[in-house]
Structure formats: C-alpha cells, structure tokens
C-alpha cells in the first residue's frame, strides 16, 4: 500500500514535458544522433553527460530547433512538447524558442545595457504593455537569476562589463524573462570559476521549481549535484537514461560504468 502511493506521487510530480522518439540527426553525411528515445519530465533537472563529440549539444539544440540555423543539419524522428510535435510544418521555430529558452556554453550577453539584455525577449514577444510591466519583468528575472542585488544600481551599465559568472547569470535571466516552460543549458558552467559555478548550480536547483531544465555537462560531479535524471550519450547513441543516483551508483551498461569511473573520456 505505502509503496504504491509513493510511486503514484512521483509520477504525478514528473509529468512528461518533452518526449523524443526515434530522433536521428545528420550533419551532411555525419550521423550525429542515432535513434534516440527520451522522455524529459516537467519540474525536473535532466542532465546529458557523455564524452565530448558524442552529440549532447546536437540533441539539446534539437529541442528548440536551433539546429535549423545550420544549413547542413537534418533532423528525423519526432519530438513533442506537451504532446505537440515541434517539427510539425505549422510550428514557427520563433514561437517555440520563446517557450524553450536556451543558455549557451560561453556567456553571450548582447552588447547592450543589463536592462536591455533582459528586456529584449519580453519586448519582442509583447509580454509587457507598459514600461512599469517591463521593469517588473526585468527585476523578477534578475532576482530569479540571483543577480538582482549585484546589478540593481547599474542596470544601464553594459552587460558585457560584468564578470564571467555574472554574465552567465545575466544570460539565464534573459532566458527566464520570456517566461519559458523549458530551459536548455549547454555546459553553462564550463567557462566559469568554481565559485561562479556553485552560484549557477544553486540557481539551477531553484529554477527547477518552475521549469523543466535540461543541462548538458561534461562534469559528472555537476550532473550528480544538480540533476534528478541523467542521460548518458556515447557516439550518438543514448546509452542509458535513468534516475541520477541510479546512473552513478548502479549503472546498467558497461559503457556508462567505464565513463563514470573515468575509463572513457
């Protein structure tokens, strides 16, 4: 009786947000993603790990169709968000990307003021009717990115003048400002020092309350620290996908085991 109730509760909490089936990605003749099935839960942090070049970024970029910008890239299979196929002909990738925010490996704030960086998304999507609305969105987003206290006195200062960690949190604030439902992060801490990394990781844990977060990381410690689910990719295949503690304590596949014990890198 007791056991059953627990299972029911977890599955309720973990509604499926994104469901990918039979995804294949080609760059010209390179077969970068091979038949990947994965289900990403809502209000959860899902980590993609794997050796470099295994296709983590490629798969992540499928989820908001950023791969459309690469001419030679071809995606097959189906990816659905809330049951709607995002590769459907009727879907406008611009609308999709407002719903699926993205944070990149290298902090890339616009060369504009901190305020304008955060306000840009809401402006182009018409999320704010008045200046006051916009101010409110900017403040809320910066607060959510744990940056407000550091920048509230210099909102008009250039975003590119912040430190690396602050820039990355600014990029997170920018992504959060368009009120997305999913947040994709491609190695968001790889350009940051340990303290900034810790801040961003803390932030990711916070963001889980509201978004479905997918994070690519090359650091297994990071995956273990921040994620509830982990997917291990190898040479374009999804080798194993399970609860994070399962992957790290009890890997099913020998390749996963070699990787987490440091034998594949």
């Amino acid at each position, binding site marked *: 009786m007791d056991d059953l109730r627990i299972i029911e509760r977890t599955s309720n909490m973990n509604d499926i947000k994104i469901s990918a089936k039979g995804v294949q990605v080609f760059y010209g003749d390179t077969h970068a993603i091979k038949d990947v099935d994965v289900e990403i839960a809502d209000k959860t942090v899902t980590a993609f790990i794997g050796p470099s070049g295994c296709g983590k970024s490629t798969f992540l970029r499928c989820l908001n169709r950023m791969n459309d910008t690469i001419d030679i890239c071809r995606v097959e299979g189906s990816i659905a968000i809330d049951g709607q196929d995002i590769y459907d002909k009727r879907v406008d990738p611009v*609308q999709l*990307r407002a719903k699926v925010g993205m944070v990149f490996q290298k902090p890339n704030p616009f*060369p504009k003021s901190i305020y304008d960086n955060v306000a840009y998304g809401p402006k*182009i999507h018409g999320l704010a009717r008045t200046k006051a609305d916009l101010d409110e969105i900017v403040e809320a987003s910066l607060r959510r990115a744990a940056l407000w206290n550091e920048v509230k006195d210099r909102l008009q200062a250039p975003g590119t003048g912040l430190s690396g960690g602050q820039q990355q949190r600014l990029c997170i604030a920018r992504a959060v400002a368009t009120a997305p439902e999913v947040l994709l992060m491609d190695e968001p801490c790889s350009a940051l020092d340990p303290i900034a990394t810790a801040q961003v990781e803390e932030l990711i844990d916070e963001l889980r309350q509201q978004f479905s977060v997918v994070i690519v990381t090359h650091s297994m410690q990071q995956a273990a620290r921040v994620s509830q689910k982990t997917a291990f990719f190898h040479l374009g295949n999804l080798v194993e996908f399970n609860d994070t503690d399962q992957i790290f304590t009890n890997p099913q596949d020998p390749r996963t085991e070699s990787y987490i014990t440091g034998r594949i890198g």
Partner: protein
Amino acid sequence: MTDAATPSTTPGNPASKKGSLLVTDARTKKRNNAEKRFRAYGITAISVGVIFLATLLYSIVGNGAGAFTQTFIAVDIALPEETLDPEGNRDRSEMSRVSTFGYNPLIQQALAEKIASLNIETEVPEAAFGQLLSPGAAAQVRTTVLNNPDLIGQTVRFDILASSRVDGYFKDRVSRVSLLRDSNLSPAHLDIVDELRDQGFAAKKFNLAFITGSDASESRPESAGIGVSMIGSLAMMLVVLLLSLPIGVAASIYLEEFAPKNWFTDLIEVNISNLAAVPSIVFGILGLALFIQFAQLPQSAPLVGGLVLTLMTLPTIIISTRAALKSVPPSIRDAALGVGASKNQAVFHHVLPLAMPGILTGTIIGLAQALGETAPLLLIGMVGFIASNYPDGISAAFMSPNSAMPAQIYEWAKRADPAYYERAWGGIIILLGFLMTMNIIAVILRRRFERRW
C-alpha cells in the same frame, strides 16, 4: 653530484647543457640580430614613405597655394547716370540693357585717371591700359551696379581682378623678359604695376571666387573657379550615397545572413570580388551604353556620373559590409535566436548595429574613391565640359551638363596658360581637403559607434 666533482664547475658557471644565463649564446644572438635587421627594414620603409608623402604635400601646397590668392587693382570708377540708367528710374530690366560694352569706357577712363593722378609716366598708350585688368572687369562692375542701383551717380572704388599676366608678375611667374614675346602685356605695363603696387593700389588678396566661382574661358584664367564642378561632384556623391548604401547594404545582408550557400551564391560572390577589380574606365563605357545610349539620359549629367560611380562603388561597399557582418561573433546571433527573435530581428536589432562602424567606414572609403575618379567620367562627357554656369535649381544640378572636381582639374592641367597650371594644383588641394574631411568623418563615426560597446 658527480657534476660537483668536475673541475669546470663553478658557482657562476654551472655545467648544465644550456650554459650561463649571463652569456648570450649563438642562437639567441642570431635571433636578436634578425630582429634588429627587421626593425631597420621597417624604419627604412616608413621613412621612405614619409619622405614621399612630405615631398608630395610640399609640391602640392607649393604649386597650388597661389591659386587661392589673386591680384586685385583698386580703381575709382565714376558711374554716370546718363550712360548707365538713361531713364533715371533705377529699373533693373532697363539698366541691364546697357551691356558690358557700355561699362568698358568708364573703366578705361578711371584707370587712366588713376595712372595720371599718381604721376606715373609711361610709354603705354592709354588704350592699352585695359590690358592690366581682367577681360571680365566690365562684367564685374556691371553685376555690382545692377545689384546696387544706388551706386549710380557716385564714384565708387572697385577692387578689380588684374589680368593673369599681372597676377603672374606678382607670383613671379612673369618677368619683363618673358613679356617681350607676349602679346597680352608689354614690359612697360609692369612699370605701371610696380608703381601701383608701391602706392598700395595693387595687391594680392585671398580670392574666394576660386572656390566658389565657375570655370572661365581659356583667356581668363584669373577668374576661373572650381565651384560649379564642386556642385557637379556633390550631386554625383549624393546619387552614389543614396543608391549604393541601401543597395550595397541590402545585398550584403541578404548574401551574408539569408542566402543559401550553393553554387549560385558562390558564383555571385566571386563576381562581386571580380567587379571590385575591374578598371574604372570599363564602368564608364558601360554607363555610356546603358544610361546614355539605351536609357537616353542626358550626356555629361551628374546623374549619369553618379549612376556610373554607383556601379563602381557597389562592390567596395558590399565587400566591406560583408566583412563587417562576418566579424560580428556568431554567439550574438545565437543569443538573439535563443530568446525567440526571428532571423530578421536578430540581424536588424543586433548584428547590423554591431557591423555599423565597418559599414560606414567602407561606404565613406567607397565614396572617397568615387569622388576622385576621373576615367569613367571621360566616357560620359563630363571631362572637357566647361562648367561655366551654376545649374539653376535642384533638378538642373543633376540633369544638366556639368563637370566634376577631378575632371575640372584635368581640364585646367591641359590648358596652355601657366596660370591654369597653378589652378590645377589649387584644385587638387581642394579635392584632397574633401577626401581628408571624408576620412576624418569615417574615423569619427567609427569611434562614435564603437563607444556603444
């Protein structure tokens, strides 16, 4: 440990493979010498360049500065009502019936009186006094009188342009010896000129008319100015700017950001690079065929010149704009697309502003190139056209025949009179002034836009 036992080892000279740091080894010496040699080459190259530039500037300024001053002779001219305004009603249309021939005797007489009053003795016949003044003197007086009818009835002091020979004497271009074989002026005239100068009635002054005036006939170099052809150049530059900037930038943005990468766009790209290297005279003949013979636009019109120069400038602008767009980091595009901006928004909100300094610099350099271009104008009839009248009205500035600054300079350099040679150099100073101003504007714009991080 064994090292310590070897006799050669001293604290100052440890017997390691590398040797002492206090002694430069042969390899390092060689590298240092190579560096010194390269620096010497560099300094030599720069010195040679600076010397050339200094020589160029010196000769341009030395030869051309004279064109900005001109000799004037002060004459007190009586303006009697009975000859200039017989009706006595100061009506402009009636006064203008008196042609320059009516004014000539007045000037002649005034000059004779002046020479007599200064007690100058001369063998020059009174009828030849007029050779001291520019043939345009009567026109100068007439225009002044027509514009100020109140002067009639008075005796007014006019500063009248001296003839080019007199001016040449002031500028050491003309001497008594050279005048022996000259039909325009005799050596005896110069005695009068000396006297006039000593008494303060003949002097060199700054001559604004060189900058604002129109071209004159071969025999009146003293009154030729570059102003009208400057208007021609200005009209052409406007056409070039208004056409090549939007077309060039739009083409570059499309090619760089939107066009699919295939053999066709590759072909276009190769062709644009090739066009940039096509000799400008080829654009001239294309313009002749396309705009004058086919489209029936008027010959020698600045509009046609502008169109031809647009063709010539477009590749420059496209290449520099594409380079500027390419230099914007792709992460900015990703960032914009990542928050759900459309491709168009990403380009116009983020990429284009960042590329702006490069685009503006390229455009201004293209314009400066076009401003100095002469060869294509040769074929559409702008070289050799005597720009003797200001165009009346805006549309005439584009449509009626005109010259352009470099064409005007070429025209002057071709003329036989050495006074025109000086004007050609003077024109070059003005042209270089424009080019320098444009380059400074480019630098300022670049700075201004780059400040916006």
